[in-house]
């Protein structure tokens, strides 16, 4: 994947206090307004907490059902490296 550094960098960014609320609201709007987004995945950080490790891998959530990041009890707080990623129609099509 081109620009892998950016993905790593993004994992290291400190989260705004309203990261989950804002990001999931955006995805909800994106789906409602018929964008090419089909859902959201949680991409755990390499050093993620136990709770994040237990999340089902690559599960595509509806924004209403996605877990809030940072997960409750995450010891890294706003430095939690787990991130949301939108899932797009063209990615799903590529999976066949």
């Amino acid at each position: 994947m081109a620009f892998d550094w950016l993905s790593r960098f993004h994992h290291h960014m400190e989260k705004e206090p309203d990261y989950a609320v804002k990001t999931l609201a955006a995805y909800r709007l994106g789906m409602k307004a018929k964008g090419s987004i089909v859902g959201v995945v949680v991409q755990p950080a390499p050093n993620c907490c136990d709770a994040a490790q237990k999340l089902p891998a690559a599960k595509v959530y509806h924004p209403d059902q996605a877990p809030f990041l940072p997960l409750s009890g995450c010891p890294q707080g706003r430095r939690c490296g787990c991130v949301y990623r939108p899932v797009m129609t063209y990615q799903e099509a590529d999976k066949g």
Partner: protein
Amino acid sequence: MNSMAGVLLRVPLFKLYRKFGWPRMLPLNLTLSPSPKCNSRCLTCNIWMKREDELTLDEWDKVLASLDQAPYWFTISGGEPLMYPHVVELAQLAYERCHPGVINIPTNGILHTIPERVERIARSCPKSQVIINLSLDGVGEKHDIVRGVPGNFKKFEQRLEQLLSLRNQLNNLTIGIHSVVSVFSVDHLDEIIAYADQSGADQFITEIAEPRVELDTVGLPITPSPESYAKAIDRLIAYVERKRFTGVARITEALRVEYYELVKRILDEEDQVIACYAGWVSAHIYADGTVWPCCVRADNLGNLRDHNYDFKEIWFGKKIKEVRQSIAAKECHCPLANASYTNMLHDIGTLARVGTKVLRPGNRRPQAAVGDPGQSAARAAPVRQGAGE
């Protein structure tokens, strides 16, 4: 009024600033994103889904007043900037406060109000060159598919015709076509070039689709492979080099070819290739007042609302130092066009190659950037593209 000569005089000072932290300089290339809202649904962009507590015009005025007359180049970006209800007033404030040489606005061309807004901007900023770049990611239905809006191509054509007619009445207005080269469009770039060539637009520019934090496209497979990009862009370079340009257009086209070559190298080498000056020479102010060095990393350097709307407090503050160190240490690399053109102005190798090309004897038949011999070469100023369309 800011001039290109003034910009060039600042180049050595910026080089010192980047290396030694002195003399302290405000950016000359500034992107303003007053709102993320957009009526396109592009496959390559998710900014339109965002909602922000946007700065008001009064707040923008305070911010712009704090910039003195440093910025030469403003990009008003989005979202769809010409959908932002106060875009005319924002451009006027930027003009009155900073006297920029260029105000550059990308647009998707959808709204029927666009020509009227562009006319008001161009008339109220008479000493700035106003550049409007219409987005085109395919010809006909292909455009509509990439942009996610049925009928968009038809509207693009209507808007292009209206804006070209306006351009003929306004000397400070340049109308360009801008194409994002993504996995969705790379295979039909030839068709887009051919279309742009006969369109009557003053210039045709491209930018590679790259992931950006701003657009929430990190990790999405939108960037063409280095091979497919090189194949497509080499044909564009060959096309540009078959043309004969004079005056300013000769310089700007040489710079564009340099940019396309630079992108190929960045993709191949996965490296900055030339020093990046984002965070020194260029900056971005997002809708909620957050200052970023660039829209790719979108490091939060501070929010202007927390700094009494004084850009200097953030720009010369503590937080930015860490980010500058990271950029200088090449912890990032990207082909962002807006920053890349600024970076090329600060790279001696690039300037030497552009100089050689410009001075090389050639056919002097006057030619504008896309191929309309009737257009003023002065309209072919170097174009950089901000985030969103």
